[in-house]
Structures are given as C-alpha cells and as structure tokens.
C-alpha cells in the first residue's frame, strides 16, 4: 500500500503557493529576518509576507466560483491561520484536480497537523473578556478550538469523510501524514487532505520556549546578526516560521481511476516514543524511526539519496540527529545529501513536517537539493550538506524527519513516481 501524493499547497514565508516555495528552495534564499513581528516578538523569524484573504485566494481563479464563494464566506472574518490553511488546501485541491475530477465527498478524509493551534487568538480576546465577559464574540467558542481548522476546511472543500487533528508537538506534520496513510490503507477513504496548521503562539507560549532555551537568541555584541542555519557550529536554537502547507494523499487505484498523476509516492513511515516527557532528543529513538521507515519502504540505506532533516537549529538536537543518521545509515551517511528546510522557512512547529514533505517532493521533482545558506562551519564536515548552492541531483528516494518534545521521533520515506517499480525489483528483504 503505497499512496500517491497528488496535490501540494503552501503559504509560507516564501510567499503564496508552491511555485514561490520552489523558487526559494532552488535559490536557497533564507526568509529569516530580524524581529519581523516587531520589538515585542521573537528576535528572529521567517514571517509570512503581508497577506489578505483575497491575496491568499487570488491565485486560485481556476477553481469553481461556488467553491471560492464558500471560501470567502467562511474565511473573511476568520483568524489568519484558517485563511492561510485554506489557501494551501485550495492550491493542493486544484493540483489534485479534486474540483474537476471529483471523488465522492464521503471518500475524502481531512487530517490537520498540530495541536494548541489557537494560543495567539485566545490571548488577543482576553482584553474584550476582561472589559465585559458578555461581549466575547460567539465565534470564540469555535475559533478557540483546534478542530475549527477541520470544520472550516471541510465546509469549504465539501469533505464528508473522517476528519480530526493530530498532535505530536513538532512531529505533528509527519504524524498526520502517517494517520492519513493509515486511513487509506484501511480503506476508510480514497483520498486524504493533510494540512499543517500555521503556528499561532501566544506571548506566554513563546516565552516558555525562550525560557527552556529552545529559541534562537540575540548575540549581546551583535544583536541584529542573524543566527547561522541548523547544523552550523554556531547555531543558537530554532527560528520560528509561519507557514501552512497541504499534501493530498490518494490510493494508487483511485488516482489511476481519476487519471491524476502521482507527484511522488509515500513508501514507508515510522513513529516511535522515547518514553520520556522531556525536551531531550535521543539517538536511539531517532535511529529507530529512520531504520523502521526505511525497512517498511523496503529500502537499503544505500538507495537513499536525500534526507530532509528535522534540523531545528537546536544545539543538542542537531548533534543528536547527525549521530542518529550515522547510526541509521551506516556507511551511506556521508553519501546522502542532507539539509534542513528550516534554514529557509524557519521552524513551523506543527506544520513543519507537512511543509518539509511538500519541499521534499518539490526537490525530487525539480532535480535539486536546496542549499543551506550561511552554513560556514558544519558541526561535522563528513556529512554532505549543500552549502552555498543547490546540489543538482535527481534523487529517487528521500527520507524526511520530524521530531517533537516528549520523546516523539518520526520519519517518512518519499519516492519519485518512476522510482517505485525499480524499488520493488531492487528491494532488500528486511
């Protein structure tokens, strides 16, 4: 059971749409700037460009007018994360041709990646509540729920199959893709829309991440100097990114019936726990996720061409991930291209796994592995990082990692469409 990826969408610091993301990846342009949300926000971030709902939907003119009208009605007074999620989902919907080669609404499922999605919104409503509780908007009861994403997107897209959110801290994106793949494998749906939700953190949640030492901080002697990318010796923690991304999975049979081409295939996946409540990454857990995902994809490490690392820029996390890669890939570790898309678009938390799966498919399609701009002093020079410029290489098989607080490690394996048959004939018996 190897579902096809049939649609991609993204609204990120690179701009609206996957074409904007592809350009940023290809050119290796970091979208990280100093204090993009003002002096009270985090010192560094990869912020969305200024965006209206009309702007997010403008590129979707090929979609039926009735669908766009539903989107307008549902979104015009909605919080930004919902507008951005709909922008990404509608793009993927159009790419997957679910508007003109439709499936029964009951056979489409919706999985939203991320939890604790409404902290910023809830915090912003506190002033109204404090002045007069009776004046709190009735929309609060809906907008304060993570599942508002599920309700809103399903209303716009007319989805009637199963729908829910999946939470796994920064591993949420991969975990959502895994749950989507299971819905297809169990026959519960023919296609599943997976949406990574834009992180909308409150100031108290941000400060919590600052106080645990997770976020990139200013240097006292050079406060405006941007932090180096993940895997650099001088990394300082993660840089928050804003993005919503969408990936649509469909069973191979259903995609064939609808005559929709596969952009990639999901070959395997694994998620494991460390049995730990801490923000303490472990070599064993990360290695297990990668090894199991490769085994389920029936791939040997030597067949792997690219790893989209979790690579958050965490001082400990990046070193642990390299050690885990060495353990999981054996002798192949130094031959496989490795980068972290967080170097360009920041760490989009619950959406990260979906955005990076989208970026991985774009790189497989485009025949390149994006650069890590500013990677002057890699932690370990025996790994193969594209540094100043993208590596031009048409990779067949890629692995994408997402790790989360609470000992959650997850990996997925994606393949070029035409690599699938080759993989079966060359497969290594696990």
């Amino acid at each position: 059971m190897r579902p096809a990826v049939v649609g991609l969408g993204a609204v990120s610091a690179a701009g609206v749409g996957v074409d904007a993301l592809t350009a940023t990846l290809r050119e290796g342009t970091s979208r990280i700037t100093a204090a993009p949300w003002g002096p009270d926000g985090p010192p560094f971030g990869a912020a969305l460009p200024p965006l209206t709902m009309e702007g997010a939907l403008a590129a979707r003119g090929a979609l039926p007018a009735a669908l766009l009208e539903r989107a307008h009605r549902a979104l015009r007074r909605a919080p930004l994360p919902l507008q951005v999620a709909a922008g990404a989902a509608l793009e993927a919907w159009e790419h997957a041709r679910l508007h003109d080669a439709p499936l029964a609404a009951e056979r489409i499922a919706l999985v939203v990646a991320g939890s604790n999605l409404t902290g910023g919104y809830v915090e912003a409503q506190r002033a109204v509540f404090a002045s007069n509780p009776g004046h709190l908007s009735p929309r609060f009861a809906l907008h304060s729920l993570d599942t508002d994403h599920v309700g809103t997107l399903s209303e716009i897209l007319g989805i009637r199959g199963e729908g829910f959110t999946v939470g796994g801290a920064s591993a949420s994106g991969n975990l959502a893709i895994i749950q989507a793949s299971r819905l297809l494998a169990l026959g519960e749906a023919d296609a599943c829309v997976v949406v990574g939700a834009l992180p909308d953190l409150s100031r108290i949640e941000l400060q919590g991440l600052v106080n645990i030492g997770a976020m990139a901080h200013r240097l006292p002697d050079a406060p405006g100097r941007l932090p180096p990318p993940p895997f650099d010796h001088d990394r300082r923690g993660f840089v928050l990114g804003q993005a919503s991304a969408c990936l649509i999975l469909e069973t191979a049979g259903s995609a064939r019936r609808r005559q929709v081409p596969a952009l990639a295939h999901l070959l395997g996946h694994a998620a494991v726990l460390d049995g730990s409540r801490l923000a303490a990454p472990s070599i064993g857990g990360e290695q297990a996720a990668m090894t199991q995902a490769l085994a389920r994809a029936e791939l040997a490490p030597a067949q792997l061409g690219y790893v989209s690392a979790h690579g958050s820029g965490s001082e400990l996390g990046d070193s642990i991930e390299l050690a885990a890669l060495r353990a999981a890939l054996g002798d192949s570790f130094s031959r496989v291209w490795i980068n972290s898309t967080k170097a360009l678009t920041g760490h989009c938390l619950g959406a990260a796994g979906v955005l990076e799966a989208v970026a991985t498919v774009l790189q497989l399609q485009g025949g390149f592995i994006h650069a890590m701009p500013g990677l002057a002093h890699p932690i370990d020079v025996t790994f193969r990082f594209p540094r100043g410029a993208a590596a031009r290489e048409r990779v067949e098989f890629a692995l994408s990692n997402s790790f989360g607080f609470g000992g959650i490690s997850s990996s997925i394996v994606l393949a070029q469409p035409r690599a699938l048959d080759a993989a079966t004939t060359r497969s290594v018996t696990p």
Partner: protein
Amino acid sequence: MTDDAILQVLRNQILAILPELDPAEISLTRTLSELGLNSIDRTEVIILSMEELGLAIPVHEFRRGDTLAGIIAVLRRYT
C-alpha cells in the same frame, strides 16, 4: 434612543458580517436567519450591537427566530 437608531446599529453590524446584503432588505419585520445569517452570525450581531450600545444582556434573553423588531424590544428593556 429611538427604535430607528437601534435598527441602524443592528443594520451596520449585519452589513459588517454580510457586506453583499442590500441595506434596504434589513427591515423590522425580517429575522436574521431570513437575511442569511447563521447561528454564530446571529449571536455576533446581537453581541456587537450590545457592545456598541453599552449593554450586556444574557444572550438567552434573545430568542431564535426573533424579528429585528423583537430584538429591538429586548434591547430597549435594558436601556
């Protein structure tokens, strides 16, 4: 405050939520549902209007299916 003044407050809030609506359609005999507002929109019109009028009336005082005249009558009882 006159009924007309309160109607104007309601009308402005309704149009903020459904800008495509013809203002002339918003008359005393219509219900909010008839004008195309969903359940959340209806409560929001009432709460935003209360906020503008400096009122805080429990929302259960308003009945589903009230005409605008009915809503105005409840608002007036508290002014």
